[in-house]
């Protein structure tokens, strides 16, 4: 596997959320808004990349018998570090994510990558794998967060929890300006489906996204199958032509 393939596999082909259904706890619990999803994703990027690097660095020194507990201690260390950093520099995000920051320790994705990849591969490859998978996880969280926030409020906000780049909350996107082309003083937030900001909305949004991804996968598989059948038909046709030609030649020779 090339480094590029290693990096990109986590986005669609082996996406932790949409393909392996790993890390469902944060995927359902902290994706009420785009911003909390992005915040959780960034924390996982930090923890997964660094834990993969450290596990890969020390894989030859850690005895087989204590492999899993050692990995958990390494992951827990990074999670404690991100928790303290979040408390210090993004306290509103820390409040919004609450107990789900310490719960990163038990995210199956992180221990899974340490066990299945970092403990068997070189440091650079492990770093790329961790970074790529974590970005894929972030992409998954953001997809759910965007769908939920759009349906719940009709827009996407930034600046409520993350203290970077803006001084006060801004609307990254809203349907208001499109609808106000046709109707004045329209506020899409008055017509939001509040359920999507609540836990049942997380399940429904995830179900829609999984169904969409599965439908695309099925369509691609169907197209591939059809292409394969077409190729076999063409090969059969070509073989029949060759047979026909050989028979004609034989008949010509005989006459």
């Amino acid at each position: 596997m090339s480094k590029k393939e290693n990096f990109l596999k986590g986005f669609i082909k082996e996406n932790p959320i949409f393909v392996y259904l790993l890390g469902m706890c944060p995927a359902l619990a902290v994706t009420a808004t785009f911003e909390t999803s992005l915040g959780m994703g960034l924390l996982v990027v930090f923890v997964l990349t660094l834990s993969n690097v450290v596990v890969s660095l020390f894989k030859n020194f850690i005895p087989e018998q204590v492999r899993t507990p050692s990995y958990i201690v390494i992951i827990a260390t990074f999670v404690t570090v991100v928790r303290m950093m979040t408390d210090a520099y993004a306290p509103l995000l820390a409040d919004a994510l609450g107990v789900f920051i310490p719960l990163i320790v038990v995210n199956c994705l992180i221990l899974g990558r340490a066990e299945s990849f970092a403990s068997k591969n070189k440091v650079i490859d492990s770093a790329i794998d961790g970074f790529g998978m974590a970005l894929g996880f972030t992409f998954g969280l953001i997809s759910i967060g965007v769908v939920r926030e759009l349906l719940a409020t009709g827009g996407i906000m930034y600046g409520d929890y993350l203290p970077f780049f803006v001084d006060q909350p801004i609307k990254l996107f809203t349907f208001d300006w499109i609808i106000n082309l046709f109707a004045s003083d329209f506020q899409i937030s008055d017509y939001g489906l509040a359920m999507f900001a609540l836990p049942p909305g997380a399940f429904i949004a995830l179900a829609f996204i999984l169904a969409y991804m599965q439908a695309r996968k099925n369509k691609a598989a169907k197209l591939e199958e059809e292409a394969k059948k077409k190729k076999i038909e063409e090969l059969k046709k070509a073989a029949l032509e060759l047979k026909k030609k050989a028979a004609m030649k034989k008949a010509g020779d005989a006459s």
Partner: protein
Amino acid sequence: MLDKLRIAIVLVVIGAVSGLTIYSVNLLTKDTIAQNRIEKEQSYYKELFFLDSDEEVTFEVEDFDDEAIEQEITLYNEAGDVIGYIYKGIEQNNYGEVVVLLGMNVDGTISNVVISSTTNTPTFVKVIRTVYLSNFQSQDASDITLDGNTGATYTYTSVVHIVEDAATYFLGHRGDQDE
């Protein structure tokens, strides 16, 4: 034997490096975290008495070691008159810590109650903050009745304990002030 010794050494090294890492980051961040907590808590003081954000207030803090509540904060307006008392209580439950601030008017009625910080499940905390805490407003410290519809969570139970402790303290120490 040597194998076991090797495992023990590796575990000790991993534990020590982890501990040192956490200790170093704690040294770097602890002051900022403490400052953030203080600022956040102070931002609630005006909210507890429904004061405008531009209103000038001063406060005095008294810490307790041997009381059920942690702190009593006396809030003064610009003229130096007491606006009310704020009681800070901390309770540990199965889901972690709950820090509650209760604003008590000088006449013994509860002005407002807020959850200052907590590690409890955010979804439940949000419901309690938005729906159930307002039940305490305007209740008399000597006769607090609890709404039956409370969400029935550990967080709410902790809030009730702290509210009762604050009311008991107020009645014991300042209950006769308005007479």
